[in-house]
């Protein structure tokens, strides 16, 4: 990497033990950021992420916290301050998708999805915003989904779609509330090859690829690259925006 875009920055990445969150944590560290690797259950995987970052010469540590629990979130942010003294970047990545029709899901499924995906982003953002305002600088990147915009195949996952549509609204509303020192944007990934995709039936998988202009799955690294851009100086004039990273899916 010829230039580190996030040198000296302190970043919290929620849901960073695997998938997109993991890729963002790794890439942020490679870009010079010191990273707080949040996880809720996978302590071993989170420890692996931290270890990989350290072996590459980076700096990171892991914090267990349920983003849907306010006390946990406060502890996560306090641990960041205790360890690094500030917080420049928050990536709200922690999320779940219930792979069932709304006809089959339960009220608990709804609560769990909305609590983690939407309330989690709300709580984490609210917790870091006063700190970033005092610092007179900071940026929040929400990992949303293009299913919150228009996507039929992802629309099958009702609770997930609702949570991501809510996250898109939250992104815009917080951009207004947190300006001028904090920028708030969302990335709306299309289908990214993660554990979530593996659970989808083969016929649907093929249809998704056929409907994607670049005819390939996205990778967690694709999303990480956009997450670097949105946190970098090159995106200083961007706030309240939804960046679609979907390989051209949705234009057919």
């Amino acid at each position, binding site marked *: 990497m010829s230039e580190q875009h996030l040198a000296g920055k302190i970043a919290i990445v929620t849901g960073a033990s695997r998938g997109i969150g993991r890729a963002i944590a790794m890439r942020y560290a490679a870009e010079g950021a010191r990273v707080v690797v949040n996880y809720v259950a996978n302590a071993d995987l989170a420890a692996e992420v931290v270890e990989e970052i350290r072996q590459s010469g980076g700096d990171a540590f892991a914090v267990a916290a349920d983003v849907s629990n306010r006390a946990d979130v406060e502890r996560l942010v306090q641990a960041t301050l205790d360890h690094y003294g500030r917080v420049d970047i928050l990536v709200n990545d922690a999320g779940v998708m219930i792979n069932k029709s709304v006809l089959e899901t339960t009220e608990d499924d709804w609560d769990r999805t909305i609590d983690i995906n939407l309330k989690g982003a709300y709580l984490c953002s609210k917790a870091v915003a006063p700190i970033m305002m005092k610092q007179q600088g900071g940026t929040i990147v929400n990992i949303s989904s293009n299913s919150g915009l228009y996507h039929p195949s992802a629309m099958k996952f009702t609770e997930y779609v609702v949570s991501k549509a809510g996250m898109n609204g939250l992104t815009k509303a917080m951009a207004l509330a947190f300006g001028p020192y904090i920028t708030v944007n969302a990335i709306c990934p299309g289908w990214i090859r993660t554990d979530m995709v593996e659970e989808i039936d083969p016929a649907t998988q093929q249809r998704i690829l056929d409907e994607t*202009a670049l005819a390939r799955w996205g990778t967690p690294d694709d999303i990480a690259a956009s997450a670097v*851009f949105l946190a970098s100086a090159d995106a200083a004039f961007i706030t309240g925006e939804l960046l679609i990273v979907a390989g051209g899916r949705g234009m057919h």
Partner: protein
Amino acid sequence: MEQRFIGKVALVTGATNGIGQATAVRLAAEGAIVGVNQKPDGDATVTLQKIKEAGGEGFAVIADMRNPAQVVEMVQEVARRGGRLDYVVSNAGINPFMKWDETTIEDWDNLSETNLRGTWIVTTEGAKQMIKEGHGGAIVCTSSISAHVGSPFQSAYCATKGGISMWAKAFGAVVGKHGIRVNAVEPGWIVTNMSIPMFDDPPAVKYYEERIALGRAGQPEEMAGAISFLLSEDASYVTSATLLVDAGFIVNAEL
């Protein structure tokens, strides 16, 4: 400056000032050879000078975006002189203020031929050249927040920008299989020749500052940063997308 575009060749239209100039300079500073488009009566000297100062390489190419033959020839010329063509930044545009009920056929044709038809020709010719050369590429069209919100005295302009954003999305869907990505940037209130008259209008300045989440106008270099991201490998899964670069104006626009 990092060097993401070494060995690449770019064409930037409307590159004699503003966003086009800043983009041409940024791409050249990052290693691309840049064809700097000017109108027949334009002057690319300043842009070429800035490219030189940045340690980059560029050359002027002349075409009026309203003239299809000139645009086609320009694309060929850039590929010939640069040795290949990897990127097209379709940026040339005009924004004459006029009342909707006084807009003439000539006004409309001038606007749409420059902004929309010009974008269509230069991006399709660019993509054909990339396909002929047998490699992928990336295209960015400069659209505007005007693709989303209307504005008095700019209704026809808004229509061209809405067309440009949709063109980027639709075109990206058909050239993706050739490894060509197409996206649009939608600038908000940027300090350029096009927007300078607005800075002499205190009520307009107040309107913008109060509504923009970041409370300020943007610089052409900030647009160049967004455009260069969309051209770069970091955006390799970004296509048929539009990217607002407006500091949070649209989310608070009052119309």
